[in-house]
């Protein structure tokens, strides 16, 4: 059947592709997003920025184009044995014990290193790690968190929204109540509460490392918008004549919900999904900054920014600049792409 019928001259998605190509801003944005994805792929495979955690330069190594700039800290540390200074948040940081291990590991790594560079392509951080490598690795983590969390939130929101909108009645009442409960709690508080229990609670050992804590926190707090949107779409579509016609020919409720209605609302879901990716990346950055995001042995744009605050005061601006630039370019391109997507999918413009 597929071979006979699905040879379509133009279905909705090929039409979308054609329209995206005609939109110049959309095409450029798509190019940038694809470039980021390739970069992430290489970083995940280890070809790129695999050694981001190695201390290849002196502390606060100058960027290569500012090689002549005086670097007191770097020169001092070059001589003295590196003791490591706890970050300023250590007083309130429950992960403080981890620092010892952290210290030991960096110590080991350092011994294997022959010579520390005075300059690095885009400078170094407090421990002399390459900022450019960190930014690349950070992109991988931040974008992965954003995309994974957005996918989870989309699945939750779409399933619940489809049920509430399609069945109505008590199903809708129950889910609306749930929605009201989740939206009445300011999201930052829900995030804080979840972070508190997930990190110190009964299941803390499950989430001790990796990005899943953040993904869970973000998707549990972020499904509501998707739910609202999908529910409204299903309410609109369930009484449309094509759905009634499907019911008249005997299509089951599941078939009507997923084979008939879902493809017709998928463009709404897709656009909302991309908006969620942007939103979640921004929240992840804030969470990681607050120490509630990715674990300390990983790097994300947020952890880079948290280091940057203190660095800026002593004039070391390059880590801030790198994280900001990587993030801004990606999010701008992604947002523009979303806009183009929305335009290309807008039935009114067809």
């Amino acid at each position, binding site marked *: 059947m597929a071979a006979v019928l699905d040879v379509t001259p133009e279905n909705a998605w090929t039409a979308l592709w054609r329209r995206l190509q005609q939109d110049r801003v959309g095409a450029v944005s798509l190019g940038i997003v694809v470039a980021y994805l390739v970069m992430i792929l290489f970083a995940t495979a280890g070809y790129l920025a695999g050694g981001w955690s190695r201390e290849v330069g002196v502390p606060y190594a100058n960027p290569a184009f500012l090689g002549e700039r005086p670097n007191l800290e770097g020169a001092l540390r070059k001589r003295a044995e590196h003791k490591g200074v706890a970050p300023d948040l250590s007083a309130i940081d*429950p992960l403080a014990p981890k620092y010892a291990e952290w210290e030991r590991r960096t110590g080991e790594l350092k011994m294997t290193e022959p010579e520390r560079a005075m300059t690095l392509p885009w400078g170094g951080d407090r421990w002399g790690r390459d900022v450019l490598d960190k930014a690349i690795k950070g992109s991988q983590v931040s974008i992965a968190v954003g995309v994974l969390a957005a996918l989870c939130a989309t699945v939750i929101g779409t399933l619940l929204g489809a049920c509430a909108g399609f069945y109505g009645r008590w199903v809708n009442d129950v889910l609306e109540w749930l929605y009201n409960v*989740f939206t*009445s709690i300011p*999201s930052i508080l829900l995030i804080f509460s979840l972070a508190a*229990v997930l990190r110190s609670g*009964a299941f*803390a050992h499950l989430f001790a490392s990796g990005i899943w804590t953040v993904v869970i926190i973000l998707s549990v707090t972020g499904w509501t918008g998707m739910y609202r949107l999908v529910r409204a779409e299903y309410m609109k579509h369930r009484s449309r004549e094509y759905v009634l016609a499907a019911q008249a020919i005997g299509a089951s409720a599941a078939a009507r919900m997923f084979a008939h209605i879902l493809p017709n609302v998928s463009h709404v879901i897709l656009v909302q999904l991309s908006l969620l990716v942007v939103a979640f990346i921004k929240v992840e950055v804030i969470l990681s900054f607050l120490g509630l995001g990715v674990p300390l042995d990983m790097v994300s744009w947020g952890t880079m920014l948290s280091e940057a605050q203190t660095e*800026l005061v002593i004039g070391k601006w390059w880590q801030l600049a790198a994280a900001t630039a990587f993030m*801004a370019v990606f999010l*701008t391109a992604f947002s523009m792409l979303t806009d183009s997507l929305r335009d290309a999918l807008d039935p009114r413009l067809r």
Partner: protein
Amino acid sequence: MVPTLAGVIVLIFFLFKFFGGDPSQILAGQVASQEQIDAIRRELGLDQPWYAQLGIFVREIISFDFGKSWMTREQVSGIFLTRLPATLTITIPILLLEISLAIPTAMLVAYYRGRLLDRAVMVICVAAMSVSFLVYIIVGQYLLGFQLGWFPVQGWSDDFWRNLFTYAPLPILLAALVGLAPQTRLYRSFFLDETKSDYVRTARAKGLSEPAIMRKHVLRNALVPVLTNVSLLVPGVFVGSFLLEIFFSIPGLGREIYLAVNRSDYPVIQAVTIYLSVLTMLINLAADVLYTFVDPRIQLR
């Protein structure tokens, strides 16, 4: 509102009950003896069945008595009441400033839709939205506070007016600027949707000028979705104000709960979460009432 509040209470209760750690362990630390732990369990009612614990929890909420903070031994209700003013001192001006700047801007760019001004503002908005809030705060605090010295870098006092006019302006300004871009973009789309309506064509057929149509017909209609959005916006504003409190050392609820999260100080987290949820619900209720004034099609049930 009552079922919603009940839901919030149950959600928070079970979240901490089943996913949170054993409070007695957290409270007593790692060196406590079994007797000490048992004593703490009795004090907190942890030796009772879960429904009794839920009852205690509800009683605490209603009587506004959450006992003491586990870490600072301060009364939780006291923490809430003393920290709330600082939070409101920056939250409310942020909200007002954002909305009052975003609506006219959005109306202006919607009026020039498709032209250079519109496109330029939209590109600036997208670019501005792509930079993290953190960067604005870090750079803003560094440049305007530290380098130029126009504002105090941080601080807070006991005097409301001094706070509002000395310490609050920089955080408020930064948050409002950050909020302006997404709001403008959103409100612009509301205005654009309305300009496509049939009644705009009717107004043109009457001979009204475009600015008059914008002012008299489009604005009133666009305010309906704007108002919906404002009530959705309120919980989001707390994110900004919490961050600002942490950066600017403002003794508000955000900073308090952030410290509490890092200390696993559950009573503080629970109390602040529930009372701020109640506050959010009240604001939504107020928005519903306002609705009936803006949109005659909606009647209060």
